[in-house]
């Protein structure tokens, strides 16, 4: 139970009975602690990796094993290029893991990576969502450097899963809980005013 030495800040209004007010305040404290557990409960993840189901499954499995107790992870899939562009725009996905060389299909790998750069810009522009980019093609150092710069974390394939999971954890920490959403009603001096 909570520490009784703290003043019961809410009792001014809650009850004419001080003892009951303290008991209620204890229940409220428990609720507050529970909120901290709940506030980042659901996280939508998109693993962008066209054709490479094994790698997708592996990444997904590792992420789930490590974080499923702390987060309700939902993995989003996409069926075509159009849908991944839409998901980059609309804010549904919270974390993007992009296997950069296998998202868009075309003959020219450099062209594909240019599109990935645009995709990352799109992801970052409205919502600043975290992006982990993995890359299995490192022939063009300039393109690689640009992808590395645009993503929050970068892993040339192959990589150690521990490092990847460390980066994923940092992405989770970057997500805003609902505490960061500004509240419209309260503004001005003295804390509270009726409208």
């Amino acid at each position, binding site marked *: 139970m909570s520490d009784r030495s703290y003043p019961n800040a809410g009792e*001014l209004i*809650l009850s004419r009975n001080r003892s009951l007010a303290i008991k209620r305040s204890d229940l409220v404290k428990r609720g507050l602690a529970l909120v901290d557990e709940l506030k980042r409960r659901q996280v939508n993840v998109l693993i962008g990796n066209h054709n490479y189901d094994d790698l997708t499954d592996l990444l997904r499995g590792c992420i789930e094993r490590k974080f499923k107790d702390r987060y309700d992870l939902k993995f989003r899939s996409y069926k075509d290029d159009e849908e991944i562009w839409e998901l980059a725009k609309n804010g549904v996905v919270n974390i993007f893991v992009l296997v950069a060389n296998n998202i868009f299909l075309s003959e020219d790998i450099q062209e594909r990576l240019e599109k990935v750069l645009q995709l990352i810009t799109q992801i970052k522009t409205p919502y600043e969502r975290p992006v982990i980019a993995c890359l299995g093609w490192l022939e063009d150092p300039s393109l690689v450097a640009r992808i590395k710069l645009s993503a929050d974390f970068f892993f040339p394939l192959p990589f150690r899963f521990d490092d990847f999971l460390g980066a994923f954890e940092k992405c989770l920490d970057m997500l805003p809980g609902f505490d960061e959403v500004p509240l419209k009603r309260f503004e001005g001096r003295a804390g509270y005013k009726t409208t």
Partner: protein
Amino acid sequence: MKNDITRSKTPEEQEFSRKLSELDELETELAQRELDLATFQAELHTFETRYLRTVGARYAELDEIQAQIAEAETQIKPKDKKIQEQAAQARAKAKESAQAAWITEEPREEKFKPSESLKKLYRELAKCIHPDLAVDEKERLRRQKLMADANRAYEEGDEVKLKAILAEWESSPESVKGEGIAVDLVRVIRKIAQVKKRLGTIETEIAHLGKSDLYKLKTKAEKAEDVGRDLLAEMALRVDKEVVLASKCLTEMTRRRGHT
């Protein structure tokens, strides 16, 4: 030649006018801040009731099961004093939670939403009957009672009751003002001091409530609602899961005890 004779105000009359006008402004501000405080309190009260019904009652249920588990353990190890103590603590906690979560009031609206006319009426009434405008202790006590009635009526959204309190006040002898200028001046200066003091108290109370755990929780619930989440429902769901787990544990203990 004009023959108008207009008596100029004496210095004390001028001062009295200034003070009256100052008091009038302060009374208006006081009425508004009383309204702010009463609204804040009512909103918190409404939220608390909702919270206790939705989540608090489930915590009470969980604590009851956990107390039963602790008591079942004492039967398994009757000589273990530590377990006995833990069981007593668990039982005390369950009792407290049950008392705290027990809401006797009727369910109210989801949120406290006073109408504009209700707010206006409350402000008008507060301006007339505020206890800090009393000139003696007897009047103060009467005003305090009226103010408490007004607060209750406001919280219940009872406009008729507020109007009745106002009507009662307007027909009472206390509402009649006037006497000598010197006495009136002293009276108005004292009233100004009282109103300023009360304004300070209201600011402190609002700040105090703004720091309360209940307000923090309410704010979180509202912010969650802004992003489409029902925080209290999520909390209830989580506590329900704990209740299910605790119930299974208790059932298992009871079953084992039945076998031994």
